[in-house]
């Protein structure tokens, strides 16, 4: 009797795959919409000011400007998935800029130093990871402390702005004449694509969903978190390389703005503060939008000093829209 009742007789109540996709990805889709709106505003204002449409040079510049934030944001996304937060990305970025500005011309050469900088980023991230995952300290406290420490180290390395970034680095990472920037943007997304389809990706998202449940399913929650912070460290260091390449000289305070903008980018990209839900695709959209804002404000003749005001408004609007869209999508599902 019961097999019949629970099996064949019960009607299928599946939703169509497309509806599921829209409902489950509504935050990311929203961030794409925001990106499109920002791009439209940019095109419109650019045309009104200059009487021409932005050419590939302008677009390459935007991508180059966005790259540091895209990479830092990518790492931040991985940490946010675990229900954590990495404030120390700013410090790691500062260190890598300072190292690039003071050391790159000497010793092991540009490639060697680039790898060394990424390694140092990984070590910094591992330090965070050990404290969060094994000493079980709150992520925000740990990374607040390490942010200060890394900032301090950066100032030791480069007490006042200056130094010189080898032109080779600039030419390779952010050559405005050739759209190399796009290559790295795609590379960043490709890294995420692979991560999402690896065993580590499953562990990462399971951990962020529910640590007890993840443990019960045989996932090593601590190790997963440890590596999440390490990835964030590497990404922040990479962000530093792109930043240094673009600015061509060093500043030990370079990372400070990235602490908050990387978090803004992640949440503009539709991530959940409670872990388990985040996407590098969304974060990338968020990072590009945050970069575009500068240009949009410039062409709209808004004082650049008000930039953070508009960033804040944008975040509030995005979060509220995200809530509304999320509700609607759930009702649909």
């Amino acid at each position: 009797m019961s097999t019949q009742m629970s099996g064949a007789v019960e009607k299928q109540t599946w939703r169509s795959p497309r509806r599921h996709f829209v409902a489950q990805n509504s935050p990311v889709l929203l961030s794409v919409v925001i990106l499109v709106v920002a791009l439209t505003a940019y095109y419109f204002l650019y045309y009104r000011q200059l009487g021409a449409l932005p050419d590939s040079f302008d677009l390459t510049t935007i991508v180059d400007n966005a790259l540091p934030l895209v990479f830092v944001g990518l790492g931040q996304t991985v940490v946010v998935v675990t229900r954590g937060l990495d404030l120390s990305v700013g410090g790691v970025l500062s260190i890598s800029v300072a190292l690039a500005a003071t050391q790159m011309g000497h010793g092991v050469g540009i490639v060697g130093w680039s790898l060394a900088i990424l390694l140092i980023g990984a070590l910094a991230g591992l330090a965070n990871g050990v404290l969060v995952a094994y000493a079980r300290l709150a992520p925000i406290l740990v990374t607040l402390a390490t942010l200060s420490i890394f900032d301090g180290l950066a100032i030791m390395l480069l007490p006042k702005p200056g130094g010189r970034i080898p032109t080779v680095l600039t030419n390779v990472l952010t050559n405005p004449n050739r759209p190399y920037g796009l290559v790295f943007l795609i590379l960043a997304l490709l890294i995420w694509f692979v991560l999402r389809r690896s065993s580590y990706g499953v562990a990462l998202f399971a951990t962020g969903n529910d640590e007890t449940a993840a443990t019960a399913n045989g996932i090593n929650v601590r190790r997963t978190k440890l590596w999440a912070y390490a990835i964030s460290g590497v990404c922040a260091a990479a962000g530093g390389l792109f930043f240094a390449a673009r600015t061509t000289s060093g500043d030990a305070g370079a990372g400070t703005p990235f602490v908050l903008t990387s978090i803004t980018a992640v949440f503009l990209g539709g991530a959940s503060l409670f872990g388990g839900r985040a996407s590098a695709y969304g974060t990338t959209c968020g990072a590009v939008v945050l970069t575009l804002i500068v240009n949009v404000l410039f062409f709209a003749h808004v004082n650049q000093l008000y930039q953070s005001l508009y960033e804040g408004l944008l975040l509030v609007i995005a979060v509220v829209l995200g809530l509304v869209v999320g509700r609607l999508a759930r009702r649909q599902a």
Partner: protein
Amino acid sequence: MAADIGGSAIEAIGLRKTYGHVLAVEKGDFCANFGEIHALVGENGAGKSTLIKILCGVTQPDSGEIRIRGEGLTLSDPQHARALGVGTVFQELTVMPWMTVAENLLVNDPPRGRSGLIARRKLPARAAEILATYGMPRIDPRALAAHLSVADRQLVEIVRALQRKPDILFLDEPTAALSENEVDWLFEKVKALREAGTCVIFTSHRWREVESLADRITVFRNGANVGTRTSLSEDEAVQLMTGRAIDRAFPKPPPLQETKPVMRVRELAGEGLHGVSFDLRPGEILGVGGLAGHGQRELFLSLFGAQKSTAGSIEVEGRRRRIRRPLDAIRAGLGIALVPEDRKAEGLLLAMSVRDNLTLATLPSLSQLGVIRWRAERRRMNQTISQLAIKSSAPSVEPVGALSGGNQQKVLIGRWLMTDAKVLLLYDVTRGVDVATKQEIYELVISQARAGKAVLIFSSETEEVARLTHRVLVMREGRVNAELTGTEISAEGIVAAAIQNQDGRSQRTSSEGNEVPA
């Protein structure tokens, strides 16, 4: 492979586990064999769940020995246990909420493409296959687990455990959230596993399930094994579990006085609720019955303002009341004890003290100019605690989360006894509670009715609805399908009325004469 039918599958010898200074398991001796279904019973806090957690590697014991297939070993983590063929369905759901059903089912073994990367596109089809194999094709593999009902989440959890084909399977309270059909489904699977030589160990608070399924029964009390038997009557079991004999008879509801109704509900409608009307008199215990998921929960939530009602009226003591949020309901004199579907207690503030939780809804009447009169508060609190026999070592400071499940449920009820609520809405207040506490809750319900309070009660155990009430509303598809009074009320009658069409014809065809749930 579980070849060795009848051979020892898993053994615990003298396990001991303490949490802080609380002794969870003291003399954890246990042995289950391949090819048997072994029930593990005991009151809440008797140590069953801890024992299971130890035996599947989630928790490490302080001392004692574990043997799997006769071989002594230490389980380092759940993965280790799983590699040895131990599977578990945990009492706390271990389904990841923001992952899809498919991702949850295949979390350990996702399909991979040629590149070695997980083929995310293949997940739904693979999961659908698994769900169909296990007779649950209804569940949508693309849905997020968070959007499933608790019952469906539990089913996903069960299917995930089954699909890993364990030789030794633990089921910790697998049926608490399931409907009768789903319980039957599970039991069939479990019996098939036994035939195949698997060792199945399960816990349940429903004696009918234990009785109908188990080959052997082990009783735990205060963290120790107090007996393993091949057959056990319910009375004996209760005696073993509690260490004393308990009167299992349901107390009789008090005689009803002819009075004006204290509450009138007319055509109440909302999501999942399509026009429900009833009167409730002081001292009356009105049961709400029917199969799970036919609007019972929605009825309670709507009456308490926790769910929006779109039509209908609620009158309390002759006054029409608009109840749009719980505060309106409290002001109207309604009190609700709603035990949430997953027992992690909505309604209780787990980190706050027993006192704070009890007096939460009463604070305005205990305060002067916004300052709590703490003497009065303490007096009222002590009254309620002794009335309900809530076991708490220091109610003013002990967080509710530290109490056992049964005591937490008492606090939930106690909160509304402290208010001057005229109507008590009790939704499944005995779920997951041990026999002794159940008995206490029955007595409490009856005494409240005797004191003139009106009670609306729902229970997932139909027997309780049948035995404690004056009248029963049987719900079907968000409406009252039948009203039973007097001698019409019986568990059989309620189930029959639940599956009848309104024209009175039974939809049940092949299942006539089946055992009715107790």
